[in-house]
């Protein structure tokens, strides 16, 4: 089974966000970058599927600057066979990113192309599905349960208050959600061998796109509220405030 995983380098979820001088992007000074958490589920799914099949190849693709090499090495340390860095400054336009990835992935002969359901930086939630559409492949998004039997895919995705069961055939594009698995941590041996695994870099050109960023700002600070009181005796006053002042109950 030949599996591709698309991986994005993103700020750690605990990072404090500071707006950069351009007023459109974040100030990366001092920010720790990590593999996108949802992509880690995709990496784990790829490794588990290859292990189950007993044969095949896993390839990680990342689109971004040279700093993504570090992110790719993390995936290689987890056990992915080789990496490809598509050098590009990136774009806020998900369709441009999808086109660049589809052009690369389409020629790869993959049985399965995996993405995280979204990246925790731009929250775009679209590139994986768009790649599926561009390649004419079945695509299932936000999958929290996956089984593959031969060429038949059965996926579960969470919808509001229920779970949707979705089926398709390989080759396919799947985007992963939390709950699908528990990503493994790189072993020491994995980290050592990752240094020797192939990592190819090549520039890709993205179009201008239809979506442009006009500005990035911090959300208005919430007014620090008040402490109604201490202990259960404060409940009466809290309920009165929710009812008469906030008018939410």
């Amino acid at each position, binding site marked *: 089974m030949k599996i591709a995983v698309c991986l994005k380098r993103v700020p750690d979820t605990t990072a404090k966000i500071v707006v950069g001088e351009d007023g459109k992007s974040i100030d990366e000074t001092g920010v720790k970058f990590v593999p996108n958490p949802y992509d880690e589920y995709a990496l784990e799914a790829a490794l588990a599927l290859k292990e189950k099949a007993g044969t095949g190849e896993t390839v990680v693709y990342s689109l971004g600057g040279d700093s993504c090499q570090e992110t790719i090495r993390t995936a290689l340390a987890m056990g992915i066979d080789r990496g490809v860095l598509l050098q590009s400054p990136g774009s806020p336009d998900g369709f441009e990113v999808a086109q660049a990835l589809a052009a690369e992935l389409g020629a790869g002969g993959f049985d399965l192309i995996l993405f995280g359901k979204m990246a925790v930086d731009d929250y775009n939630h679209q590139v994986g599905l768009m790649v*599926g559409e561009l390649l004419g492949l079945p695509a299932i998004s936000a999958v929290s349960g996956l089984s593959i039997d031969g060429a038949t895919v059965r996926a579960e995705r969470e*919808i*509001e208050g229920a779970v949707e069961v979705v089926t398709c055939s390989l080759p396919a594009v799947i985007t992963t959600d*939390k709950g699908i698995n528990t990503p493994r941590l790189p072993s020491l041996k994995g980290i050592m061998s990752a240094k020797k695994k192939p990592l190819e870099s090549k520039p890709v050109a993205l179009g201008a796109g239809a979506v442009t960023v006009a500005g990035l700002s911090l959300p208005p600070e919430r*007014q620090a509220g008040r402490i109604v*009181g201490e*202990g259960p005796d404060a409940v009466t006053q809290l*309920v009165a405030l929710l009812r008469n002042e*906030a008018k939410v109950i």
Partner: protein
Amino acid sequence: MPTILAVTEQRQGALRKVSLEAVAAARMIADSLGATVDALILASGPVDGAAGLGVAGADRVLTATHDGFGLYNPDGYAATIASIGRGYAAIVFTASATGRDLSPRVAAKLKTACATDVTALAVEAGKIVATRPVYAGKAIQKLVLGGSPAILSVRPNTFAPVTTDKAGTPGVLAVPAFAQRVTVTEIKAPPQAALDVTEASIVVSGGRGLKEPANFKLVEDLAAAFGSAAVGASRAVVDAGWREHGAQVGQTGKTVAPSLYVAIGISGAIQHLAGMRTSKVIVAINKDKDAPIFKVADYGIIGDLFEVVPRLTEAIRKLKAE
């Protein structure tokens, strides 16, 4: 005259409330552009609630009926919308589980991008400007949507349904031939019909302060006392396996904006605050007076949740019984 398309959602033949929110957002854009609104229903038969789409802001209500459209049909829905998509200035979806899946498919077919999870809209110099939270709400991005059509999805609970005098004139949209690559075979309901944290108007969330999974009953009881409240959870307790990941509020979980958010035994890690800070009113109950959650809470009670929460549940029950 330009037209805006609002894509509605039905489940088991009933229009979902978020559909009215998509129509409200489309109406807002249309009024700024001097445009009209078409609402689109995709279903296998008549849909309860369709008659209310005119009042909700639709000039026309188009229905695309197909035997295979009872459950969500990703390829069929996308092909149907794309078949008329070029005729619209903008296409508005809801950023629900379905809308998030469907909107990128339509956008790719129309060779353009989409703006996901939009929380505010404006029209500037004839272009739609979408405001949306990024980094889980730790920052706010403004996007200019230059695509034709502009494609966007609006966050549930953000655009309140409106009441208008629009006609909602019915129309029929033919379903084009499409290649079905993906099939939704069933919807599995959970043991209890749970309300989703993203769509509930009240969310009661629990964290590590509850000490053990069984104590989540305190949170569930309070949610039940409110009537229609959803139960949320912090990442710590989801990672510990106490609750399903679908309940997680925060950067690697869901972002919520209910009218009331009650945080119980949640200290307020930055990634949790990011997921709930746009709630209209926040209540925190925590024994640690220095917990970061109190910095965003409108009302806080410092105290032992095992004493405070049952008292609050009782008070809410009494209030509801009045």
